[in-house]
């Protein structure tokens, strides 16, 4: 589904393929370039390489459309409006997912300022999941969550994977990498990626 061919961004140079319904767990020390790699695939930073989705080159697709298909979810999501619901295209449709993530169904009117780090991280993920993207690029999506919320997020993403979504999941937690990944990529400090056995 997603082909990353000779992607080059700063010190990173990688090639790999991600299939339908597959999750690649991505590990590596801080500063290795995991976020840079995910951002480059989403085309959020200038980079070079032949990145294709279902054989179509990324450059042949308008960038906003590409990112709706190949969606990057930052570890610390950003917010451009005052309330939660303003960040969703259809808030009512998102309520069941938001509730499943352990948040109040009434949180749509909450001010972003009053949200905890964990609430922000879950809402950031919910907002991206609502796009129904073909590929999710998750950058430490449970870094600010407790064990219960982490389990819920893993279960929701697992459902998406079983429905054919491809996922690259960056994590520092080896146990989580084992749980969520069908393949494991380890990035070293020099930006090189090696595939390891799970």
């Amino acid at each position, binding site marked *: 589904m997603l082909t990353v061919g000779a992607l080059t961004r700063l010190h990173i140079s990688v090639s790999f393929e991600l299939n339908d319904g597959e999750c690649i767990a991505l590990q590596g020390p801080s500063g290795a370039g995991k976020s840079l790699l995910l951002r480059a695939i989403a*085309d959020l930073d*200038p980079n070079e390489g032949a990145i294709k989705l279902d054989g179509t080159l990324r450059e042949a697709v308008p*960038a*906003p*459309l590409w990112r*709706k298909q190949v969606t*990057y979810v*930052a570890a610390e999501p*950003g917010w451009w409006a005052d309330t939660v619901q303003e960040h969703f295209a259809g808030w009512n449709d998102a309520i069941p997912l938001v509730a499943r993530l352990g948040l109040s169904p009434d949180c749509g009117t909450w001010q972003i300022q009053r949200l905890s780090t964990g609430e922000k991280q879950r809402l950031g993920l919910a907002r*991206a999941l609502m796009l129904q993207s073909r590929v999710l690029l998750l950058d430490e999506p449970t870094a600010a969550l407790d064990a219960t919320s982490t389990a819920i997020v893993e279960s929701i993403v697992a459902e998406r994977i079983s429905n054919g979504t491809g996922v690259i999941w960056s994590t520092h937690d080896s146990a989580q990498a084992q749980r969520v990944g069908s393949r494991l990529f380890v990035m070293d400090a020099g930006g090189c990626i090696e595939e390891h056995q799970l």
Partner: protein
Amino acid sequence: MTYIQLAYSDLILPACLVVMDGALSLVLHLKLERQLAIATVRMVVQLVLVGYVLTFLFAAVSPFWTALAAFIMVIFASREIMVRQKRRLRGLWTYGLGAGCTLLAAGTVTMFSLLTQLHPEPWYHPRYALPLLGMILGNTMTGISLGLDVLTNGLVRERAAVEACLALGGTRYQALLPVLRDALRSGFMPTINGMAAIGLVSLPGMMTGQILAGVEPIDAVKYQLLIMFLIAGGTGLGTLAAVMGGGRLLTDHRHRLRLDRIASDPPG
């Protein structure tokens, strides 16, 4: 129309007021006396020089000299815009954006007023063209520099929010919109405040000058209103062009935020 002419000797006594400021600075240890002295000398030299230059230009009534003077004014304005930025664009755009937008806005509005309202003969007569351009330029410059400053600082501060919108498939225009609005508001605000306060809090310099030169107050008011409308138009046009142009330069064709196009070194 009569006015009381001043000789240079008439300025000696008022200049003592600046000396008084210097003495205050010395007594109160404000350490402003050096700056005050430099600013005073600069003001005197610059104004006297401009007086002679304008005298020459008014006598020559040449399209070349008028255009050259206007060009130099725009260059100084764009330099001033650049100096006022906390974060500058890299490369040629450091000057280019400010200069281009200033020229576009102030030039268009000045031409508009010369050709449709004042009808001087010839239309480029420096007695009308240069003072008009100067007044419009000064205000346009303030709007553009404020707008660009808020734009660049806002994009750096709101980077996570802008990139979140882009990552979810927003276009660069959608992602930048909150910051663009803030920048445009900041650029327009001094002009709006100035228009609201004029006549109540302060009498504008041009109108006061005309009244002192013997013009009837109502005629001076008409001129001032014309100038204020032109300033509002020039500031709006210039700020809009600079902020939208800045937003476009700080993103690229793949709808990516390009903060690497802001120079990292702060102005000295």
